């Protein structure tokens, strides 16, 4: 609303929003704090917040125990690869749905989404057998394909909604100006939908990064990403809160940082067509 808001009201909003924001963020904050504590401080009663002896020891232990770099690289490659591949396949599909819609377009779109409802555990066996046949067990490419397929419906849907907001006249103008289909997509459609594509990419990076079932079950040593890394920390013996925190922080930090830096894109683009 254009109406000026009193400073008092603004102050109340600010206080309330920050309180809630911090409350929501608290579990993450606590995890990060704990990762810098000793095991004893981590379970101290009463809990300590900021005033303790900060230590990097836990990170040292984790780094020594596992090859974090390799897990990280696998996560990046798998999340990035599947997203990229997904976008490449989804762009033409979304283009045709948005600009050459048929009577069945919406059905196809919803059908695509419904494929996401296949319970993963139910099909683990078939997929595992298939992967063995194809010789892509424990390979990045195998995971890239699976995660791409899992997220493809979401990518198509998101791109579809962004493309639909692009006026058809612009594409026609490009056609009049002599652009072929390829030029149309490269020079006009893609740059115009860039904010939307950016947010699609982001969302799918997050989803792929956090996917924990397939990445765990289809990998061994070669292609295991951070989800597998964290699986080796989920219940070690003895006191482990601080180490667990360090491992957790290391597993989520890259995507958290990426997310924070690009939250504007994400916020702007995350509509799923919920907004016309």
């Amino acid at each position: 609303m254009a109406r000026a808001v009193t400073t008092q009201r603004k102050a109340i909003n600010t206080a309330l929003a920050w309180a809630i924001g911090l409350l929501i963020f608290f579990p993450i904050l606590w995890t990060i704090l704990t990762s810098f504590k000793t095991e004893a401080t981590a379970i101290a009663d009463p809990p300590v917040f900021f005033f303790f002896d900060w230590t990097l020891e836990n990170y040292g232990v984790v780094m020594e125990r596992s090859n974090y770099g390799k897990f990280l690289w696998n996560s990046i490659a798998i999340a990035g690869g599947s997203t990229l591949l997904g976008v490449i396949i989804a762009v033409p599909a979304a283009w045709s749905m948005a600009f050459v819609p048929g009577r069945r377009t919406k059905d196809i779109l919803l059908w695509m989404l419904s494929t996401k409802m296949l319970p993963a555990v139910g099909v683990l066996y078939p997929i595992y057998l298939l992967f063995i046949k194809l010789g892509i067990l424990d390979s990045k490419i195998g995971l890239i394909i699976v995660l791409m397929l899992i997220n493809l419906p979401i990518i198509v849907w998101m791109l579809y909604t962004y493309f639909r907001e692009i006026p058809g006249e612009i594409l026609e103008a490009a056609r009049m100006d002599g652009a072929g289909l390829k030029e149309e997509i490269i020079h006009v459609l893609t740059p115009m939908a860039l904010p939307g594509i950016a947010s699609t990419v982001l969302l799918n990076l997050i989803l792929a990064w956090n996917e924990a079932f397939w990445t765990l079950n289809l990998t061994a040593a070669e292609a295991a990403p951070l989800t597998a890394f964290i699986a080796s920390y989920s219940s070690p013996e003895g006191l482990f809160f601080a180490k667990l925190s360090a491992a957790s922080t290391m597993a989520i930090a890259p995507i958290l940082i990426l997310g924070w830096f690009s939250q504007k894109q994400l916020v702007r683009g995350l509509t799923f067509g919920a907004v016309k």
Partner: protein
Amino acid sequence: ETLTIATVNNGDMIRMQGLTDDFTEKTGHDVEWVTLEENVLRQRVTTDITTKGGAFDVMTIGMYETPIWGANGWLVPLDDLSEEYDVDDILPAMAGGLSHDGTLYAAPFYGESSMIMYRTDLMEEAGLEMPEGSPTWSFIREAAAAMTDRDADINGICLRGKAGWGEGGALITAMSNSFGARWFDENWQPQFDTDAWNETLTFFTEMMNESGPAGYATNGFNENLSLFQQGKCGMWIDATVAASFVTNPDDSTVADSVGFALAPHKEGIDKNGNWLWAWALGIPAGTQKEEAAKAFVEWATSKDYIELVAENEGWANVPPGARTSLYENENYKDVPFAQMTLDSILSADPNNPTVDPVPYVGVQFAAIPEFAGIATDVSQEFSAVYAGQQSVEEALEKAQALTTDAMEAAGY
């Protein structure tokens, strides 16, 4: 060659990862580790072995899997190990549990039983004394009640209540043996409708409610370990390997006041409530790197490896429970819990675990493929009792029904 090895994330295995350079040096083979939490590991290797996926060259498996897999021919038989490896040095109970038809299918990395760990100081304060040999359950209950001081945050006894056949399920099954109960009769009929089971579960629940920690229904090994290390438990009946953790002054606040005793039994029953378990290394049949894998298994479960650990980390931290020679070693005799560990292991008999005869092998499990699934369900029903969500009778009734159903499904 590079070996891919699936392993569990416990302390001994992590330690081994740190020492692999020694293996590489000796053999020229590299090693890639896939370290997973126990449940994830089990599901992961099982999927791979049943589908012949070949993702791993060596797998860390337990006493439960080994005989089943060996029977299916999925594991490379370990019948041609080298002279110096000295197969016969492996404790017979361990070798027995890791064999099928007399052939060894996995080499034990370490073995464990369960025993009582208790706080000598608290016991003294309570004016009690731990008897020699196996105490009775009623003594334990009494002692627990005496040690409990809720204001000081001390619980008389900490036991696993967490759902999962390898967690609370293991404890209650081992305990039921000492109450004269069994899972199946000789015709594979589930036995949860017997008084023995009722008594076991009732006793456990009552004792834990009296003297156990809050929320014990979700406590497993790790939770109890922390509690004990924090000085919040008077007694803890759990894996013998825990002994080295609770006596390690770096982690444990009560390191110098821990005593050990054999697991308890019920009056008039000559089975103790202790279990038998080993983490062992097996080689999936069909691996391309059988030779290298064997070399690794030999290395990791050898006497030399024990020496290596002792050199680097001290005798208290060597993998226990696998080899007779360890217990004959002079250096190891100084370790306070060594003898009790050995005694506990020796007092468990996987082939004859219960008072009444049973058709299965395994102390705290039955080595049949269906057991893991059934026992998980059953232990969940039990945990619901611990959490106060159902009665003992309800739980047993459900356990009986679901076990019957599952056994039927499996074609018994």
